[in-house]
């Protein structure tokens, strides 16, 4: 381990921030997109199927979890783009800390996701969503969401390192939709055919959504899911984090 892990990671994070400054439209689009989905499901499509209580109280936590899950594709796209450009060769031929490229990536993505959460929560409040459960519950919920995003981030990095081609990113961009929707983000499992409801309840994202609803006192919240919402992302991290780091180091084999 080099003494420069922190400085190099910070330099790489600032590189991502410089990209934002260069591409403000892209940043705005990525923030607006989940808001669009929220409005679409809230007003156009959503019927609050079998939800006990206002649908918006059910929907907003679901959308927060869904947005964290969709972050996977952004991470995968960015890493794939980097890998397919010559610049990664320059990074790897320089005496920088091993993990800095990946740490910089995750720091920037986490920051973007945090901003995304703030925007989405703001829009949710404007739509009439009224979270309960106090400051502690609120912070806990945000923590669970970011933890889930962090796990998705490393899944995304690993996918990019394994697949490594822009076509594969496209495939994943399509696949996150059914996987994301196979959850309780938008509708309760009770409103689904039995087997589907079972699949949906096992989706790690559903655990996060249920725990967040529980902490914020909304409909669809069930106590006892917080541990699962912690355990699932941690389990994903235990698998994908070392794989991704090893894979990145071994690029030269």
């Amino acid at each position, binding site marked *: 381990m*080099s003494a*420069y892990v922190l*400085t*190099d990671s910070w*330099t*790489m994070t600032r*590189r991502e921030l*410089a*990209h934002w400054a*260069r*591409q403000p439209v892209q940043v705005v689009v990525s923030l607006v997109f989940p808001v669009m989905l929220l409005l679409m499901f809230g007003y156009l499509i959503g019927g609050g199927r079998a939800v006990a209580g206002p649908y918006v109280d059910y929907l907003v936590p679901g959308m927060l979890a869904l947005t964290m899950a969709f972050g996977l594709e952004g991470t995968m796209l960015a890493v794939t783009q980097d890998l397919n*450009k*010559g*610049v*990664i*060769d*320059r*990074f*790897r*031929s*320089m*005496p*920088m800390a091993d993990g*800095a490229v990946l740490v910089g990536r995750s720091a920037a993505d986490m920051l973007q996701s945090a901003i995304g959460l703030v925007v989405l929560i703001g829009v949710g409040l404007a739509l009439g969503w009224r979270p309960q459960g106090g400051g502690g519950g609120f912070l806990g919920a945000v923590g669970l969401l970011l933890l889930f995003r962090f796990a998705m981030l490393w899944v995304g990095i690993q996918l990019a390192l394994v697949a490594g081609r822009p076509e594969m990113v496209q495939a994943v961009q399509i696949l996150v939709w059914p996987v994301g929707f196979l959850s309780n983000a938008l509708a309760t499992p009770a409103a689904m055919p039995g087997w589907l409801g079972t699949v949906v309840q096992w989706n790690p994202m559903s655990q996060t959504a249920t725990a967040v609803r529980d902490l914020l006192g909304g409909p669809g919240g069930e106590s006892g899911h917080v541990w699962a919402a912690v355990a699932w992302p941690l389990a994903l991290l235990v698998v994908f984090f070392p794989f991704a780091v090893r894979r990145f180091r071994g*690029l*030269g*084999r």
Partner: protein
Amino acid sequence: MADAAIIVEGAHKTYGGKKAKDMKKALDGLDLRVVRGTVHGVLGPNGAGKTTLVRILSTLLRPDSGRVEVAGYDVLTEARAVRFRIGLLGQHAALDEELGGRQNLELFGRLHHLGARQARVRADELLERFDLGDTGRKPVRAYSGGMRRRLDLAASLVTDPEILFLDEPTTGLDPRGRAEVWSAVRSLVGGGTTVLLTTQYLEEADQLAGRISVVDRGRVIADGSPDELKSRTGGDRIDVVLRDAGQLGAAVALLPVPEAGVSVDVDRRLLSAPVTDRMTALSRVVRALEEAGIDAEDVALRRPTLDEVFLHLTGAEEEAA
């Protein structure tokens, strides 16, 4: 050996593929020694192993076996020490395309652990030196090919490396871009930097390198100064294009060289032969053709092409085998 900046002994590299038929031998026992402070050309066709060699030397790729030392450090066990001492100009621009020129240079300066101010000063120097001073905020992706290459070169010089690798630095550039890169490389020579340059063009190696290693199928098949290599191929050549292909046979007999050395291309009505004394050969051939009443469309002197040097060298190798 204190005077060697790069030592490669018996380097092998085979690219993956689970079945034997998918495996590709990129380096097959390559040996190379580059003297400190010189420009060394590695010349060879596509697929000869040039890029693999550069990637191994710059710690991007691990050799399967063999000894590889750069600046006195082993690329496998002391990769970090190597990275402190090298600059790399790969075949594809190793730049952040979204950022501007200055931002790129500052980024690489910071990653070389220069302080913020130092990195900024260095970026300014390099922009000035490579004539990129007024590119403003324009992102690199909007640069011309020549500008991009110059910035790439500047990026590989952020810390004044001891050893600089240039992997086909002018492939894909127009003549102007090529001239720009050549003059930039020349300006480095004399500063004590060791340069290893790969190229497909004999002319480029000739222009820039003091010593050339010719590489084929993952091995060095010849090395020497550009002049030594060319004279081994028979030096300059004379090309004669006739109006009438029917006269090719008669013309071969007139050329002032043994018949065995003349190559004939009937479709192009072309004779080609090696010559030693350029001007004498030219006037003798023209006179002989005139006297024999053979009509020539074109007579020209030229240097051997890489193909010829190459065919000659590989041919000689096969005979020796």
